[in-house]
């Protein structure tokens, strides 16, 4: 197996673990953690394709990964603020107990 394929396989496994966590866990914080893992898997793909791609001196993969890290940080901050706000209202972070919109 070529190095690129092995990096892509690790990234695919990481993405699937994140997807499974986001779809199956009850706690909203862990759903956010699953989404973070999926974003990290995408970043690993960017860097692997940049390293083994045809012209790495163009820096495109590195730049995209830098901007993805920035967007992921902003997403984590807003998501956790939303979870804290929801917890203040419903006194729980379990997603299946948050089932009314104007409770």
């Amino acid at each position, binding site marked *: 197996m070529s190095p690129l394929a092995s990096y892509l396989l690790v990234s695919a496994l990481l993405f699937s673990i994140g997807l499974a966590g986001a779809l199956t866990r009850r706690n909203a914080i862990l759903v956010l953690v699953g989404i973070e893992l999926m974003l990290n898997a995408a970043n690993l793909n960017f860097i692997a394709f940049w390293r083994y791609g045809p012209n790495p001196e163009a820096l495109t993969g590195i730049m995209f990964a830098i901007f993805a890290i920035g967007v992921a940080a902003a997403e984590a901050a807003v998501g*956790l603020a939303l979870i804290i706000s929801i917890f203040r209202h419903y006194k729980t972070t379990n997603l299946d107990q948050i089932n009314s919109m104007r409770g």
Partner: protein
Amino acid sequence: MSGEVTLPFFILGVLTIVGAAAALTLRNLVHCVLALMLAFVGLAGLYLQLDAQFIGFAQILVYIGAVAILIVFAILLTRGAESPSQSIVSPSWASGSVVSVVVFGILAWTIRSSVATRHSTPLQPEVTVKQIGNALMSRFALPLEVIGLLLTAALVGAVTIAMQDKQEMK
């Protein structure tokens, strides 16, 4: 070194996958975040293996330094530190795991049969932080401004959302 999986890659890959799996299966939420940090460390090591030093250190700074601490804050503020007494998985966990296994199967099959992974390994690229800075200030100046605006908006928005309402406090 082309053509086979090296030992550092194997160790870092196993570290990342085990950390990610533990982060989403443990019961105690604080233990989950510690396992998540392990996965982030493994990912930073993988970036260093791929000769992307800047991204590796940015990963350590941003994810282990900021995002993980933020998640710990959120867990402690929502009283999630004690282990939950009821089930940790949602009622629809079976369909969720089937979907993720199918997604992994499709991705793995595509990677195995792709022609893009059969090229020979190019030479090690020489990328310095100076080059990255120059590119950020010239070719990627507009995206840099946009991401600055996005981060400012996210900062203000997070504070606004998490701030307590005046009516709630009465």
